[in-house]
Structure formats: structure tokens, C-alpha cells
């Protein structure tokens, strides 16, 4: 090997290793600890009674009805938000992808909710908009002669889905609008000249062009949505009952409210497996459109 190549290798290794080592530690050490704790009978409030539990924590966690329910809530939440943000995101981006007065301002307004911190979005929606007595929606409903809806007691999951969708729709719009700008306008023009309808242009030109951005949006959002926590923490605390308890929130209650380290760790590992399952599934479905650069 030449001196230059050897030097390059050395420089490459030296500069990359801090990041690799740190990320490795950040991933492996806590995960190994979670794995270890998940086999222990370990409650922080009663640390003396600590012993090996085998798979007891897992069977306890997996058999409990709250686990199955939280799994369902997690999937419903992630699934609905994905569908809502992608469908509305595509429609809105296609709508605003034209020259009109104030086009730049419209774009800024559309992407703004993405920069609002989750606790703020959650509380602004819960208090100022969705409050059944003094919220703006209640007033709007009364104005058109309807009974105001008690959002968080009657439609808890729908309310959370609404808030989270409002946060992530701007992300989809931002990505789609950026991607549409790289589309060849002459191609569209030519198709219209040939007599193609607007629907046909959308179906055969725009949608294929957006396939890759859609795949990316679904992947990135799925990663973040599987971790939805703050919106639930600040609005419903998982309730009423366990109507809005998703997997992260369930693990949180077991770890930091009941201090049951063993069960919480087992639940955390289940969350890891679920996230990997979703990631593998998404890669299978969307992998092709991702690698076609």
C-alpha cells in the first residue's frame, strides 16, 4: 500500500472514531443494561428484594391487557398520523406549487407548526382550542347550532392524533414542496398541451416524482411518531382509563411512576423490537424507492 493511501486511512480512522465509539456506547451500554434489568425483580422503592426473575417480567408484561392495548394505541396513532400527513401533505404541496401573490408567505405559514415545541402545541390545542367550555371550537360549534364536543373525554385518541398530525403535516409539506421545485415544468406544460387533464398530470407525472419523498417522509415520521410522548403527557396522561396510553407512555408509567425497573425494562425491549419491526417493514416496502437515487 502506498504511503499516501496509508496516511489517508490513518487520518480517516482517527477522525471517525470518536463519533463511532460514542454512538456505540450510547447504544450498547444502556441496551445491555435494559436487557439485564428485564431479567430482574427490581423495584426501586423496595431495592432489598431484588433477585433473578428469568422471563417473568416479559410474560407479565406481554400477558397484561394494558400491553396489548398500548400496542394497538401506538399503531393506531402512528398509522393515522402517517396517512393524514402524507395525503394532506401531497394535496397541499401540489396546491401551493404555483406562482401567486404572497407565495413565499404562504409557505412560511404552512411550515410554522413544525417548529413549535410539542408541549406548547399540545397545551394550546387542549386549552385554547379544544376546551369544551371556553375553547374556540366550542364557540364555533355553538355558532352553527351544534353541541360542543368534549374532545379529550369523548374522542381522546382522535384529539391526540389531531394535535400530532398538525405538528407533522408541515414536515411533509416542506419536503414535498422542496421536491416539487426540482420537477421539470416543461414536461408538465407539454403534457397539458397534448391534452392531458390535470388529474392525469397529477397521477402520471407528479405522484411518481413524489414517490421517493413520500418514502422518506414515512420513514422519518415513523421513527419520531413511535416515540410520541410529550403530547400525551401534557394532555391526557394516557387516559381516560388507558385510551391514549401508547407503548412509550406505558413504559414511562412503569418506570418513573411505579418504579418497577424490571417490568419497565421488559417493556422498553418490546418497544425496541417493535421499532425494528416497523423499520424492517418500511425498508421492505419503500427500500426500492430510497436506493434509486
Amino acid at each position, binding site marked *: 500500500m502506498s504511503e499516501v493511501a496509508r496516511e489517508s486511512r490513518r487520518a480517516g480512522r482517527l477522525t*471517525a472514531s470518536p463519533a463511532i465509539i460514542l454512538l456505540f456506547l450510547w447504544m450498547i451500554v444502556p441496551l445491555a443494561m435494559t436487557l439485564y434489568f428485564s431479567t430482574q425483580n427490581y423495584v426501586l422503592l423496595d431495592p432489598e428484594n431484588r433477585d433473578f426473575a428469568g422471563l417473568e417480567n416479559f410474560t407479565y408484561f406481554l400477558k397484561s391487557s394494558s400491553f396489548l392495548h398500548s400496542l394497538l394505541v401506538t399503531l393506531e396513532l402512528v398509522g393515522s398520523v402517517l396517512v393524514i400527513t402524507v395525503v394532506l401533505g401531497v394535496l397541499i404541496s401540489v*396546491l401551493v406549487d404555483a406562482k401567486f401573490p404572497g407565495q413565499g408567505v*404562504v409557505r412560511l405559514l404552512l*411550515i410554522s407548526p413544525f417548529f413549535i415545541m410539542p408541549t406548547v402545541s399540545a*397545551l394550546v390545542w387542549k386549552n385554547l382550542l379544544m376546551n369544551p367550555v*371556553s375553547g374556540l371550537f366550542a364557540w364555533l360549534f355553538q355558532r352553527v347550532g351544534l353541541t360542543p364536543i368534549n374532545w379529550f373525554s369523548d374522542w381522546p385518541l382522535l384529539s391526540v392524533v389531531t394535535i400530532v398530525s398538525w405538528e407533522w403535516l408541515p414536515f411533509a409539506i*416542506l419536503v414535498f414542496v422542496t421536491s416539487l421545485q426540482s420537477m421539470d415544468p416543461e414536461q408538465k406544460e407539454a403534457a397539458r398541451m397534448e391534452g392531458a387533464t390535470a388529474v392525469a398530470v397529477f397521477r402520471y407525472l407528479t405522484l411518481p416524482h413524489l414517490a421517493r419523498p413520500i418514502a422518506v417522509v414515512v420513514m422519518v415520521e415513523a421513527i419520531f411518531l413511535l416515540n410520541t*410522548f410529550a403530547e400525551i403527557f401534557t394532555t391526557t396522561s394516557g387516559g381516560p382509563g388507558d385510551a391514549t396510553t401508547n407503548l412509550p407512555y406505558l413504559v414511562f408509567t412503569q418506570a418513573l411512576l411505579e418504579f418497577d425497573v424490571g417490568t419497565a425494562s421488559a417493556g422498553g425491549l418490546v418497544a425496541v423490537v417493535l421499532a425494528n419491526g416497523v423499520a424492517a417493514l418500511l425498508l421492505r416496502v419503500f427500500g426500492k424507492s430510497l436506493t434509486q437515487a
Partner: protein
Amino acid sequence: MSDMKKRRRIAETVRAICSWLVALIIFFPIFWMMLTSFKTELGAFTMPPEFLFTPTLENYREIMERNDYLHFAWNSLVTSGGATLVGMLVAVPAAYSFAFHPTQRTQGILVWMLSTKMLPAVGVLVPIYLIARFTHLLDSRILLVIIFALANLPIMVWMLYTYFRDVPRDILEAARMDGATLTQEMYLVLLPVSRGGLASTALLSLILNWNEAFWSLNLTTTQAAPLSALVASFSSPQGLFWARLSAISTLACAPIILIGWASQRQLVRGLTFGAVK
């Protein structure tokens, strides 16, 4: 022909109106929050809602005095700024390595880094909480700095990598031929030509850290609690101060919205791991 032109013009007008309408609806909650922050506590509850009222700065005065807003704002600034700094110090060399000294394993390592982002936070909540507890780092800013920096490291490395990839290799090689050391090569040659990419990466990290809520809520109480935790404290039934909540929220979100507006295009690149530019 003029008939067609006319129809086209109408279609364009309808489209513009619809676009504005959709944008205003989506932005409305933010506008309403800002408006409420200038109402009195009583006015914030009034039915029908007040649209025209005498604005007051009372809430802003109140949160500075009673809620100790600046303490939480300082925590937000230190944790998100500190984590960005630490993250950049680690991410820049790594991205440099992947862009200019690639090996057969580079692509694999990049994908692995991305995959660490898929590890759900709850999967490591228990050990991180226990480690923090036993090292007496619970509710400390240094803990949040470490966690934020590590959590966003993959995104930062990826984003910087996509920028560095576009830098011509010749100028780095020329510097190396002239006898520049590794550090000189990075700091005197690479960084000045990729200032834009560095700034966007730092801004994205700043935004993500500032808005982070999972770790902030679970690992802090008062000492190190950032703004997202202060806002969350208004979720308790005692905290029904809507006008004050709105004022805190407005102050907490305004700087980030401005940063986001200024760097929207670059953010797409970072958040999609370079897949959409």
C-alpha cells in the same frame, strides 16, 4: 383564445385563494396563541372569545417575575447550545472522514449510525435514568447536553457528510501536499468553504434540542428544566392560566420559528438524511 386565457386566470385566482385559506387555517393556532398572550386572564376565558380587545403586557411582566421565565430560558439556551457545540466537535471530524477518506466500510457505518436513530428512547429510559440517579446527574444541565448531543449525532454526521461530499477533493489534497496537518486541513481549508453547511447543521441541532421533550420531562425537575418542561407544568389542573401559558409559549417558540423560516431549505436536507435536497 381570450376565453381560455380568462378561464386560466380564474383558475389561478381560485388556486391562490385556496392556498392562502389553507395556510391561514394551519397557522391559526399559533396566531391564536399569540393573540391570547396579550389578553387578561379573564379575557382568555371569555365566551364568546374576544377578537378585539385592549392588549396588555401584564402576562409578560408576570412570567418574568412569578414564573422565573429567564431561568428556564437560560437552561434551554445552555442545553441546546452546549449540545450543538459538543455534537459539532464530534460530528465534523467524522463527516470529514466519511467524505474524504472513505473505505469499503463507510457506507455500512453511515447506515448503522442512522439505525441508532431508530432505537426508541423508552428502550433506554430505565438505564439512563438509573445511571443519572447514581451519578447524581439527575436534573443537571450537563446530563441534557450529553444526551441531546448523542441523540442528534447521527443526523449531524449525515447532514455534514452530504455537504462535505460536494466539496472538491482537490483543494484538500493541495493543502495536504503543501504540508498542512490534519487539523489545519480541516479548520483552515474545509470549514471555511462549507460555512453554509456547518451553519445549517448547527441550526437544525439547535431546533431539535430546543424542542426536545421526552428527556427534558423525564430527567429534570426544576434546576435544569428547559422551557418545554416549564410549559408542561401548565398541564396540571392548578395551572389554568391560559394567558400566561400563551405568553410563555410565544416567547419560547418565536426564536425557533424565525430560525426555522430562515433555514427551511437546508432543514429538508438534514431531516431527510440528504435524500431530498
